[in-house]
């Protein structure tokens, strides 16, 4: 690990300006950043710390609900009102990583963490995510990699469980920038590696998520989150699925269906949503929606099984939400 200068920010605005400088990284819980530095794939000159800033770890139920970006995953998972109003988010936070990590990891950091692709994480491989010229996973060891967008530059999967839930709930983000503030829908945050594989999201240098805003649950709202992991203790999911919608007059309204760990971004399935929208929940409908969700999958050499797992997991999640 290279020596670096630690800059504890006095405010989020100051942090945004400081973090806009080159060779500078932002640190909240530091869970992922310290890993990358130890792995030798990131060596910032300066680290701007926001971990200690007050007031950013609050949960206000609103409506709309506002969750400060420094709220830990543990706090979200254990919050009784979040569990009631946004059960899929609570479940995603509860199931992530380990108890120790959930006590340190923040919501903002979880959304912005870098992928776990082993080629990216090993300094031996100069892959496209690190600015290199190759994606070693495409024809290499790709059992855990993407099944969608596999013709793009990079086939890693997005690691954030909470992001999957937040996309399903249609969250908005309040962002502090070096020159002020802005809002962004979480739908616009993540970026597919079509032209550039080095970034997972559209936040520019010095832009910091301050608050995650969740729309009030409509009457008859339903949501559910599920994942499949090989191990029960500390394992990354093979696939995740999250569904949020409301049921009015026996029909599904405004469904949002998101798959996790299947693409470089939380993968919204408009195909599955189209199957569900306006129809009455039934086992048959869930099956059709799950089929539609994976119809466009293009698995790699070692991960065709993930298509099947994604299908099953989504079908079960739909059952959880509506049955």
């Amino acid at each position, binding site marked *: 690990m290279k020596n670096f200068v630690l800059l504890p920010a006095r405010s989020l605005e100051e942090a945004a300006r400081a973090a806009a400088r080159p060779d500078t990284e932002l640190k909240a819980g530091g869970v992922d950043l310290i890993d990358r530095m130890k792995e030798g794939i990131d060596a910032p000159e300066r680290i701007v710390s926001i971990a200690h800033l007050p007031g950013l770890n609050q949960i206000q139920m609103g409506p709309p609900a506002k969750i400060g970006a420094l709220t830990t995953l543990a706090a979200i998972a254990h919050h009784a009102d979040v569990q009631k109003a946004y059960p899929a988010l609570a479940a995603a936070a509860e199931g992530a990583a380990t108890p120790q990590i959930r006590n340190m990891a923040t919501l903002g950091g979880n959304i912005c963490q870098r992928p*776990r692709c082993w*080629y990216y994480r090993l300094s031996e491989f100069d892959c496209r995510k690190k600015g290199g010229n190759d994606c070693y996973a495409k024809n290499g060891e790709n059992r855990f990699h993407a099944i969608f967008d596999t013709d793009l530059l990079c086939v890693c999967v997005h690691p954030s469980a909470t992001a999957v839930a937040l996309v399903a709930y249609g969250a908005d983000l309040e962002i502090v920038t070096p020159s002020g503030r802005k809002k962004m829908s979480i739908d616009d945050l993540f970026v597919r590696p079509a032209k550039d594989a080095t970034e997972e999201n559209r936040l520019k240098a010095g832009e910091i998520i301050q608050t995650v805003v969740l729309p009030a649950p409509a009457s008859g709202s339903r949501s559910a989150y599920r994942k499949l992991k*090989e191990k029960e203790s500390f394992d990354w999911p093979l696939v995740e699925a999250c569904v949020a919608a409301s049921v009015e007059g026996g029909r599904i309204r405004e469904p949002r269906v998101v798959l996790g760990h299947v693409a470089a971004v939380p993968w919204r399935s408009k195909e599955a949503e189209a199957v569900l929208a306006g129809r009455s929940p039934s086992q048959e409908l869930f099956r059709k929606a799950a089929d539609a969700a994976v119809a466009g999958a293009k698995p790699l050499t070692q991960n065709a099984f993930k298509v099947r797992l994604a299908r099953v997991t989504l079908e079960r999640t739909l059952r959880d939400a509506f049955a």
Partner: protein
Amino acid sequence: MTKQKVRTGFADQLETREIEIATGDPAPWDPSRKFSILGSRVTRLDGPAKVSGQARYAIDTRRQGMLYGRILRSPHPAAVVKEIDLTAARKMPGVRAVLAIAKPGESVRFAGQEVAALAAETAEQASDALSAIRVAYEPKAFVVDPQRAREENAPLVFESQGGQTKSTGGDLPSASKALPRKGNVQGPRKTDTGDVEKGFAKADATVEGTYVTQVQTHVSLETHGLTAEWNGDELKVWASTQSIFDVRNELAESLGLDKSKVEVVTEYMGGGFGSKFGARVEGVTAAKLAKEAGAPVKLFLDRKEEQLASGNRPSSIQWIKAGATKDGKLVALHLVVHGNGGTNGGTGTSRPLKNIYACDNVRVEEYDVFTNAGPSCAMRAPGHPQGVFALEATMDELAHKLGIDPLEFRLKNDPSEVRRKQFEIGAERVAWKTREERRQTKDPSVRRGVGFAAALWYNTGGTGNSATVRIHKDGSAEVIHGVQDLGTGARTMVGIVTAEELELPLERVTVRIGDTRMPEGPGSGGSCTTPSSAPTIRAAAWQAKQKIAEHLAKNWSVPPEQVAFMKGEFSVPGDPKRHVSWSEACAQLPAEGVSATASRAENHADAWKRFTSGAQFAEVDVDLDTGLVRVKRIVAVHDCGLVVNALTTESQIQGGVIQGLSYALYEDRILDKTSGHMVNPNVEQYKIAGALDVPLIETVLVPVYDGVNNTHSVGIGEPATVPTAGAIANAVSHAIGARVRRLPITPEAVLEAVDEARARGGVA
């Protein structure tokens, strides 16, 4: 030597036999003895120190002025080292010593092989300075895939005949040098018993299959390494090792020192599983760096180095064919195995097949396939978990084909009366008979399967070690024995045996272990620690007690053989005046008390000869739609001879089960075929079972009195992990109605088998 009558056997099936007992050695304990502490559940003597953080492990060693060593490793899976330039590294901040490990012209044969090393004032300076060592390599073609390595045009791992690398002198399984090698394939080691062709000709049913197992790494919590400190021409090291005396011997030999000039200390260590015998490259390197720098050097591997270069359980491809007559008698077994230990040989898996079930016609052909990958070394029951996985799957298939219950089929062919009993105990516990009706669960996607497999191990332990027991005038005792405690509870075992023989409370016994200044203890390999140490310690305690009796005899003016020791009292039986308590007896001792040093007697050749046996039963839930396997319960029935400490014996079994479960379902060293690098050199993507993955583990101990040594001790570390993967695989196969022939049992492997079963119109 005297012949004595000794009762041997298991459970309540005992017989009396005459056994030659060496002078100075007590006869094996009689099974009827009412033990005061032996066999009970004794918490570890060092438990409080460990849980409170007081215990100083080898990796915690800090010495005045200590430097930090680091090793530079080859980034190439195959290359010739052309030049190593250390000049720039010497000038780096904090660097005090630099040395080359490889020589120009030598080959490196796996990514991660040691090339050079240095020591600096801080760990960070040492890491930074590595990049200043300039090495010119001539990269060569390589192969990491064992299938590819067997092809005719595959790149050669070893250019010339002979020569396979060994990571350490302590590696247990070593291949015979006389074996032929063609390309990257060495062997076969071939054995024939009976006539396998004639056996198959007699068979009414035969089955065959190919079974594939992965590379498993040891993942000791404490990594490999030591701290070396010179004092003039004497070297002292604090090592994380399974064998302090092997470390001493390797250091003395490598550095040209007298053994008397080297001291090795292992007070506490965090696991080895077969990978921590000699000093190894990193240990010898630390000593050399310390010499050059004139300061102590601590050199411990990090987790990545540990995954690349500290050894592993070789992978295997086993083709196996078996035949039986229609009445269920096994008549032919044929195994062809291609093991892959990277740059190491000795990868066979045949011992379970040769030693578990009775079969008159057995042919075994074992090949080692070399690849450009880190060398294998001994790992908890070398060759056995992989061998049992293939053998027991085959036994299930053959039983199925014959239409015989798999349990009954085992009972017909198992020559071990102990294991037959164990099979029955396990079957009863898991309600084997009702397993079919329990296959369906409340969840329509989930099937419950039950399976089992056999374990065996060998009567290990033997001579070559000694112990001293001192008894002080105040009645306290001290036992001094150069064994190391790997975390198994050896320290407590040493205390219990002493306390038992002297009939003292454990707190009056002080245990001193883990230093080569002490009488030599055994290396902890082959599950031989307890069967080597316990009889030695008992003999020393027994002799010390005899010396007390001699003092009393002199005071009482009777011949020493008239003095008896019973229930904590010395007496002349039948003489009401001549009896004293333990403390009164010790108070009569001279100022220095008494002390006895005993050596381990030979194993009794006329004892009840047998293998150590065990059986494990697994209950698993398999999700037919996701392929995920959850192990719900393991019943582990084992023979651990006469148990010294029931608590730590159970812990050993639980550990063996957990490691076996992890091997069955998760662990896999994954190498990138294009670059030759391991892609999961960590404990995140190299997956190991965690707390939530561990099922209910029930252990059942069947007491066995074999009379091989004076405490009837056998080891349990290895047999406990031998059958677990086989039992789980058989349970999974039962659940889904199709055979899983590959470890780890991944979701995709299960789904493939489910599809196969459905295609046949089976299961679901």
